[in-house]
């Protein structure tokens, strides 16, 4: 015991010395105002909406190899009780070794390369009430093991416990085309939301190529809706019940990066939701540096989106976009993308612009909407919820 102590003491002293300054706390408080272009469809919906969110992050490193991260998130929304919600984005322990890493707890993982859709990203559920862009994710319980051999990474994910997708409530806008019963999801698996899902991914960089191959086996993050499965809310309206089936999905994501060109591909094949189907997104981004003798950079984006499912919104669509970076004091940036169905011309668009104010604030302007929507296109259900959103984030 004594010997143990005497050998531990210098170790502890070393750990203490190394962990000096290893506490890191940061936070983002954000206020957001939305204005919808069209009059609301339902009584509880509003033309304007105010919302506040708060996301602090606490990080503590025990030594060089071990750390803990905790990131809670809360949002209050003026109109939509479903959008007023909280989540643990991250709460995990992380161990780093020479040839492997282990994360255990709740974390977020993002896979994929394309701009206009995120097909291969599957580990985390989408926090859809946060944003229709599918980039905000719910925290997922996981044991995430990364093996780092000579070439690339091999990652194994054990995912105990399922998170249901968050859908806007009756009073929320933008909607998702139908009202969703957020309380009575159905599961194809007898284990319900207690099933442990698994995912495996290999990713590597070789020269100009970055490649990821992955397989996921578990509860689909994306539910299906059966027109016959609904409940009635107190207004007598149908709220459709999400059906979460067990799927197997294999995916590839690929990017080639040369001086001015990015070439991108994401493709999936999925089994378990009716017939096996495939979907893919592929495209390019070309960047003009120093346009017109200024210091601004302009990227031009072109992507093609394909989905075999008849109900898919982006089944045969072209996305064209611009990415502008002013490279000024305030890091002013803008992304604008238009998605257009090749068959019937139905289109949707989004514009996201942001600019730093002072040292601690960032102002963001976002607009989303649809145009020229064919009445038979699935996009029709999203018509009428176009909006512009102004948000101010305070970072401290």
């Amino acid at each position, binding site marked *: 015991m004594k010997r143990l102590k005497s050998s531990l003491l210098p170790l502890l002293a070393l750990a203490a010395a190394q962990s000096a300054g290893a506490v890191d706390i940061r936070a983002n408080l954000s206020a957001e105002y939305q204005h919808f272009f069209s009059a609301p469809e339902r009584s509880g919906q509003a033309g304007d909406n105010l919302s506040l969110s708060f996301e602090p992050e606490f990080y503590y490193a025990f030594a060089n190899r071990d750390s803990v991260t905790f990131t809670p998130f809360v949002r209050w929304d003026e109109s939509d009780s479903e959008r007023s919600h909280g989540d643990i984005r991250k709460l995990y322990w992380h161990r780093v070794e020479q040839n492997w890493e282990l994360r255990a707890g709740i974390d977020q993982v993002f896979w994929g390369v394309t701009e206009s859709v995120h097909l291969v990203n599957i580990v985390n559920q989408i926090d859809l009430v946060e944003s229709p862009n599918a980039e905000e994710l719910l925290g997922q319980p996981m044991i995430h093991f990364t093996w780092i051999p000579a070439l690339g990474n091999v990652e194994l994910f054990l995912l105990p416990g399922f998170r249901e997708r968050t859908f806007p409530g009756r009073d929320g806008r933008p909607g998702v085309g139908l009202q969703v019963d957020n309380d009575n999801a159905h599961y194809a698996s007898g284990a319900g939301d207690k099933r442990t899902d698994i995912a495996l991914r290999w990713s590597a960089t070789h020269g100009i190529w970055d490649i990821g191959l992955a397989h996921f086996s578990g509860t689909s993050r994306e539910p299906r809706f059966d027109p016959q499965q609904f409940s009635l809310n107190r207004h007598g309206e149908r709220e459709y019940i999400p059906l979460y089936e067990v799927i197997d999905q294999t995916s590839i994501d690929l990017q080639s990066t040369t001086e001015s060109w990015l070439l991108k591909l994401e493709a999936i094949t999925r089994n378990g939701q009716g017939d096996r189907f495939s979907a893919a997104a592929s495209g390019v981004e070309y*960047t003009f540096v120093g346009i017109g003798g200024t210091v601004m950079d302009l990227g031009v984006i072109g992507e093609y989106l394909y989905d075999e499912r008849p109900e898919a919104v982006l089944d045969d669509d072209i996305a064209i976009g611009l990415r502008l970076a002013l490279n000024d004091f305030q890091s002013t940036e803008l992304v604008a993308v238009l998605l257009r169905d090749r068959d019937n011309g139905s289109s949707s668009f989004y514009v996201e612009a942001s600019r730093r104010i002072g*040292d*601690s604030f960032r102002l963001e302007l976002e607009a989303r909407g649809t145009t020229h929507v064919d009445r038979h296109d699935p996009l029709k259900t999203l018509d009428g919820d176009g909006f512009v959103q102004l948000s101010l984030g305070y970072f401290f």
Partner: protein
Amino acid sequence: MLLPRIAVIAASFFLLGHTQVQAQNDPMDKSLSAEARGKAVAEEAYRRDRGFGDEEATLTMNLQDARGRERSRQMRFRTLEREHEGDWMIAVFDNPGDVRGTASLTHSKALEPDDQWLFLPATNRVRRIASNNKSTPFMGSEFSFEDLSDQQVEKYTYKYLRQEPCGELSCHVVEQYPAYEHSGYSRQVVWYDTNEYRTHKVEYYDRRERLLKTLTMSDYSQFLDKYWRPMRLEMVNHQTSNRTLLTYSGYQFQVGFSERDFDVNALRSIR
């Protein structure tokens, strides 16, 4: 030359491929051609900087525009010296708040494009980014990405201009022409002192041959009894009258970093 290893962020490109240093010319040899002597000066400066292993430091950038408005940014960076290829670097932003935690990883090359990755904490994503941004301003400053890169000998062709007094020292004045693509410059004029081959001043000429910027490096400190680093770098843009001051602190050498500290996994979890 020893432009600082600043660099930062997705910056750039360090180095090389020169395994063996071929017989190097003596920079003081006046019988050499202007091209050979210019290159000899750059080689000597570069040679004196090799062997540092790894380093880390904290960097403060003060940005001032022509109207006198000021902004400040803070970041930390780490560099790993690589022997047969370009150096590797990670930079992490601490300030301003909206970019806090943003980190970049660069595996540099001499003439080929660097490999660059960017980690954005807001989206939890590591993205590979294109590397044609050499002339792009770094964080809205007067430094472009190429200014912040380590200056490998192969990246330029040279012409020795003259030797002249610079302060209390004497300086070699060498003109250099970028040999890599996408540079914002037609040429640069560099002042190296003849004692230690430290860089004291660089003039940058835009692609139309007009004087664009002047960089002044000062407050040199020596580390490990060998490696000189300027603690203060001031870049003045003559065309816009904007200026950027870089101040370094907390330099540490031979921290013990390995390749593993400069891979995409490390980038994702760096603090």
